[in-house]
């Protein structure tokens, strides 16, 4: 039984220690991210010009710094969804099941369409 109690104390300690360490790290890195974002926002106009002359960049760089948890949904769409959720929340507290708002990714391999495009282009 002493062993059992011991294990329980150790376990609780380690779980708390791990999660507290994560808290600290989150606080630190979110602060850093916020700082960098602020600096970037100020200098963003300047960079825009110099970037565009940078040469070949086949994929456009993903804008990882934009602070948005809505993945760029339009305000109209949000309004519609909001209304739906509100209706749902009124009628029932428990049955809350909202469908995800998501864009389907397109992963079609580019070289699949090569033959077709070429053919089409020749008709232009």
């Amino acid at each position, binding site marked *: 039984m002493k062993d059992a109690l011991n294990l*329980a104390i150790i*376990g609780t300690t380690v779980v708390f220690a791990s999660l507290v360490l994560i808290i600290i790290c989150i606080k630190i890195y979110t602060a850093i991210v916020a700082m960098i974002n602020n600096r970037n926002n100020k200098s963003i106009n300047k960079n825009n010009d110099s970037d565009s002359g940078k040469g070949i960049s086949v994929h456009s760089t993903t804008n990882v710094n934009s602070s948005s948890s809505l993945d760029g949904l339009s305000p109209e769409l949000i309004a519609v969804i909001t209304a739906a959720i509100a209706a749902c929340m009124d009628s029932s507290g*428990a049955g809350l099941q909202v469908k995800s708002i998501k864009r389907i990714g397109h992963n079609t391999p580019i070289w699949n369409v090569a033959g077709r495009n070429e053919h089409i282009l020749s008709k232009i």
Partner: protein
Amino acid sequence: MWQAFVNAITKLASESGFANITYLNLVLISIALVFLYLAIVKNYEPLLLVPIAFGMLIANLPLGGLMNPSLWDDPISFEAILHEGGLLDLLYLGVKLGIYPPLIFLGIGAMTDFGPLIANPKSLLLGAAAQFGIFGTYIGAMALGIFTPQQAGSISIIGGADGPTAIWLTSKLAPELLGPIALAAYSYMALVPIIQPPIMKALTTKKEREVVMQQLRPVSKTEKILFPIIVTIIVVLIIPSAAPLVAMLMLGNLFKECGVVERLSDTAQNALTNIITIFLGLTVGATASADKLSQPGFGLQALSIILLGLIAFSVGTAAGVLFGKVMYKFSGGKINPLIGSAGVSAVPMAARVSQVVGQKANPQNFLLMHAMGPNVAGVIGSAVAAGVLLSILG
């Protein structure tokens, strides 16, 4: 010729299941049917309980040879399993080798939004507090005196309210209890909306339940991308034995958040998770066969598991709520203690319960998002707890 015919039919009949079914088989088949009913009609975690219950059903129809428990006695010979194993033995390799649960965590990671946790990192404390359900139950299980430490650890992980974690740990520490523990874990997860509210109400005042929490700040994409990387590094450094679960959970989340591997994120969430869920459920259920469960004292053990599982959930809920009350005090009344109960995980059920109970006290109260923080923190917390148990008892 007639004689030959009679002989052959007699032989077939004696080889049929009817001639070989035992009383314990019938009991276990009945239990499997009850779980099928609960899963299908009552919607008890059907994604896992339908395969688990079906696996339990077919493993108890005698002589199917789908699973041969004797092959899994120590020392295991994989060459023998490949030579003599039935279909479920072969699929069970993924459980025994610890492959399926981490892959399910990969899919769960790709489905999980840690945003609410990043916006309010203190939630992690609630996710930690609720794990006391695990360690409290461990003490209780050892006190009963009928379980080895390994068995007690496996039973207590039910309090983690996380199916794959429970299966992963039990398959390593006490595979003989895998069936009952998986059934108990998923059943209690389904019962969270029944178990938690009375405890939450008993431990909080109406004033506390009415607290409307402050809107969470929006979380940037960069923060979300960095989160899984940082958590992986910290947790694996502190408790390496939790690496398979935590690393896969975080890899899945990185797939989701990084935005450049949508293909992988989609497959991790769907095809891969579903295939593994079928194999995992079926084979975990099949371990609950009469061949394996007929040792003396098993009935008492099974009842104890049911009881201890309930205790684990209740203690975890209470610990979460009580820690929530502490945070309510320290924050000057800004934190609603009801979100503490969500720390047991059981994603997303427990967070919904917080929402429901909070809204009953105050119809303007939307706790769902605030409760998602402790809720997903509880997943990390119980994976860490499983790592500790494996490290000490394994």
